[in-house]
């Protein structure tokens, strides 16, 4: 049995035991009533959360199943993520062509990356009105800056020998960008993608909670509705859905992409 396989199995076992212990602790606290009157609200028993999880999908809220809320959130998310990533590549590419663009864009990244999307909400509502455009804008804002920072750092870190080998073959301009810079910066780009995804997911849910659109309700709005109706089991069950989506994207999408690029090419240990 290889050492890597053993390490991996050990890691999985540790994680399973940890989660099982957490669940047992949760259930013990829930049953003990240690939190007094609010115990059922703060720590609803696991079976209630499980039942609420199923109810979210079968019954849902306001005649809409959880699938509708997930679908809306994912639609906003993917639209914003796509636009953000495209813009990040476009602006970072322009930075490699023009030093003036590079300096201006570096300044923009430093300024806007520090600005929380939620703080922009009032301004964005004034611009877009009450529409899905607001949420998409906030997702783009969450993705664009960290992604650009990573893409640019990745471009700067491309070893000179790859660039010279490319130029030696006759590559220049866009050819050099697509033929050398992008593949050589893949580790940085993937790490930017992970940060961008996490920020976008958080940004999306926060925006939906503060500013849910009734015509296209998402997961954030659902949680908020559950909170106002004091359906805490449903609230936790929705959190579970959010965590599950995060885990699926991380392990089902981003990690396989990394394994089949940087991992396969020996650019990541």
């Amino acid at each position, binding site marked *: 049995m290889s050492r890597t396989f053993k390490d991996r199995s050990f890691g999985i076992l540790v994680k399973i035991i940890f989660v099982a212990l957490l669940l047992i602790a949760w259930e013990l606290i829930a049953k003990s009533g240690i939190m007094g009157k609010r115990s059922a609200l703060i720590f609803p028993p696991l079976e209630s959360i499980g039942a609420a999880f199923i109810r979210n999908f079968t019954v849902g809220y306001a005649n809409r199943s959880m699938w509708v809320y997930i679908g809306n959130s994912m639609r906003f998310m993917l639209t914003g993520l796509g636009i953000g990533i495209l813009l990040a590549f476009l602006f970072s590419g322009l930075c490699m062509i023009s030093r003036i663009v590079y300096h201006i864009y570096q300044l923009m990244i430093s300024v806007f990356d520090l600005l929380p999307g939620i703080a922009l909400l009032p301004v964005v509502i004034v611009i877009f009105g009450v529409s899905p455009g607001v949420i998409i804008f906030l997702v783009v804002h969450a993705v664009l800056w960290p992604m650009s920072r990573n893409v640019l750092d990745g471009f700067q870190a491309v070893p000179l*020998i790859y660039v*010279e080998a490319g*130029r030696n073959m*006759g590559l220049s301009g866009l050819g050099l960008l697509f033929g*050398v810079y992008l*593949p050589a910066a893949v580790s940085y780009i993937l790490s930017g993608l992970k940060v961008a995804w996490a920020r976008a997911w958080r940004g999306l849910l926060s925006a939906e909670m503060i500013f849910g659109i009734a015509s296209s309700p998402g997961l954030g709005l659902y949680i908020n509705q559950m909170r106002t109706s004091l359906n805490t089991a449903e609230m936790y069950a929705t959190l579970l859905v959010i965590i599950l989506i995060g885990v699926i994207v991380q392990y089902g999408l981003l990690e396989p992409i990394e394994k089949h690029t940087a991992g396969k*090419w*020996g*650019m990541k240990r």
Partner: protein
Amino acid sequence: MSDIVLSVTGLTKTYHDHSEQSLILKDLSLQVEEHEFVCLLGPSGCGKTTFLRCIAGFEGYEGSIKINGSERKGPKNDVMMVFQDFNQLFPWKTVEKNVQYPLKLSGIRNAGELKAHSDRALSEVRLNGYEHYYPHQLSGGMKQRVAIAKAFCLKPRMILMDEPFAALDAMTRRDLQKQILELYNKEHCTVLFVTHNIQEALILGTRTIVLQKEGRIVLDEPNLLKKPVTPADPDYGTVWKKLESAIYMEGDR
């Protein structure tokens, strides 16, 4: 008389670093004929690598560098460079794709043709069976062989080699010297080869040039030793000593 492939006239290269400037090459002139294998020797810092980089089009310069009569303005694939660094292959491409990439960029699009070219080049450097390996799965010597196959495959006007075997063990270095000689004889190309190793210059070169500080040529003569060159050749010792004194003439021993 053979055609002149490389013609360098009054080449001067200065590096500017903040307020300081250092003169690396001063008024260097030389010509290289077709199918010559020129070995460039000289102490560290004499400008050998800078000279190669100017010819490859990586550096700006004063003076004139002409390849086949046309002025060199920037990098172009009619002059291929083999670097000293093992990591000159693209890690995201397999061995086969690394060899095929410059061919593709030069206009060959047919998959069968590309495959035929890369198969032939890889078999020349005895790397059949490694087509689908990625560079990180190869040893340093194997990576250099791929780089050599890639350079020769394109059939450029000239191949520049900047100490490509410097970091290899003696056995691998000997193997590669043999392979490069075979390729050179088969492909009839012109090679400019930088090395610190006198023996390597004698084994490979048809002409030897020794540079000193600021790229001053202190020795430029044909290598008349009978090929394959061995230390048993009666003239080997004399030529070796001559080159050694030219390299260390400025007391850099």
